[in-house]
């Protein structure tokens, strides 16, 4: 199948929309786990740009980068969920606006 049938710009627009949804999710949601899911969505929109750009440019580097982004996202998931778990053990909540010990 020829991927050039779908122009590169369309992939970019889709990725930008996904990225924006993710960014808005991070800013508006209060549940730490949902915020984290929104961040994962931003990273996946990045993967979409890399894959389609690699196809568009005929260059393998973009596809390779995606593997690293996925590995980093997995590492972030492990650490992020561990931190949320530590928070829950201390405060019995996962809502970020209920966590406000540090203030001046």
């Amino acid at each position, binding site marked *: 199948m020829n991927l050039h049938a779908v122009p590169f710009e369309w992939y970019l627009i889709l990725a930008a929309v996904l990225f924006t949804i993710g960014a808005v999710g991070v800013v508006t949601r209060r549940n730490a786990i949902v915020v984290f899911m929104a961040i994962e969505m931003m990273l996946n929109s990045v993967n979409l740009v890399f894959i389609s750009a690699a196809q568009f440019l005929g260059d393998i580097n973009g596809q390779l980068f995606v593997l690293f982004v996925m590995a980093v996202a997995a590492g972030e998931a492990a650490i992020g969920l561990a931190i949320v778990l530590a928070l829950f053990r201390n405060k019995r909540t996962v809502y970020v606006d209920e966590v406000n*010990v540090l203030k001046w």
Partner: protein
Amino acid sequence: MNEWLSASPLLVVSLAAVVALLVDALNPHSERVTYRFSLMALAIALIAAIATIPFRGVAFSSMLRTGGAPAVLDCVFAIGGILTILAARPYIAARNFEHDEFYTLVLYSTSGMMLIAHAQHLLILFIGIEVMSLSFYVLAGYFRQTISSVESALKYFLLGAFATGFFVFGIALVYSATGSLDFGGISNAITSQSLVLPSLLPIGIALIIVGLGFKVAVFPFHQWAPDVYDGAPTVVTGFMSTAGKAAALGAFIPLVLDIVPFKEQSIQTVLALSAAGTIIIGNVAAVVQRRIKRMLAYSSVAHAGYMLIGLAAANHRGLSAVIFYAAAYLFMQIGAFVVLAILERDVERSVELDDCAGLATQHPALAAAMALFMFSLAGIPPMAGFFGKYYLFTAAIEAGYTWLAIIGVLGSMVSVYYYIGVVVQMYFKEATAAPPTVDPTSVKRFPLVVSAVAVIVLGIVPSVLESLLSSFWK
């Protein structure tokens, strides 16, 4: 020089970080094997870094830059790691929370910083930033049963991961625009006007700057820094706010070198405005703090602003001044945080300004060291901090940013107020409460002595390091 040898500081620390986990697993009951192993690895890396300074070049299919400025930054990171590990052991042991993972995480974060400094390819830069940040998230939440530490880790993690999203999206757009991921290829594509999709390039660069700006905590992305630095364990804050900041600023250097010269003034102007905002916000907010740790956290934002001046100037003098200041700042800030760690009585309550009253009579050596670091942070000659600022401000004037230098000087004048406030408390106020119980031998602790000596030496003979650094860009 052989590429394995020229990249040896990075390779030693990366390998040691992986092996440290095994050491830990194979010696579950032995006393502090990981502690000694980590110190040894960082010491070897420091020697290797000093040895590789003259051998400038690229290694591993031009993925890494070696020698020169990256090697000097390696020295800074290795010294930071050593001082942190040495200061951390009594600190975490006193709180009955000594686990070998702490030392391993310091090794991992150091290897991430070294990757950033050596990066000649956006993939390496991305991996380096992530290795460093992921280790810092865990280190910030190291006291996992203390709510302030966990809160600091959560805030750092959510905002850091958010910033990573912007950063890596920027990389993807720059890749789409130039068809290249290494700095040489990107710079070639920009100079030869052979961009695949030129409209994506400015957006990509802007997003990369936003992502890196978050990591450095520059205005307007600085809000997380005071909370995170305040809540994290004190020794970790000292490490994050110096070596971590230096690494993230180091990531700007190839960006400025390879992209700014071809993109007229726009990026420089953005960096200059951001530097001005960072200096003002950091200094003004630090004035009203009562907790010394939080005051140093805000002032650390201001110091990032000073270093950003050198990047905004983007001339050779400015870039070497950034690295000089990063080195000087490492010693004075870590020194100040080691003093705080000694004074701190328990995890929940950090040292307030009033707790320092009368410290000079009770613990004269400790008070003298703290005063030395405060003077240096305020930029009073002949300490290292003064010459760092001097080089940065002259670089700004040379590049035509006189107004930025004036803001920097005004900011330093404000900072004198709150730094000297600590000294006044220590020397001219009577102790009100019971004096903090300090182990008398703790004053002789190695990190304090090293930091104090380095602050004085860098202040008396700054030209040694400065001329070495400026030779890299001639």
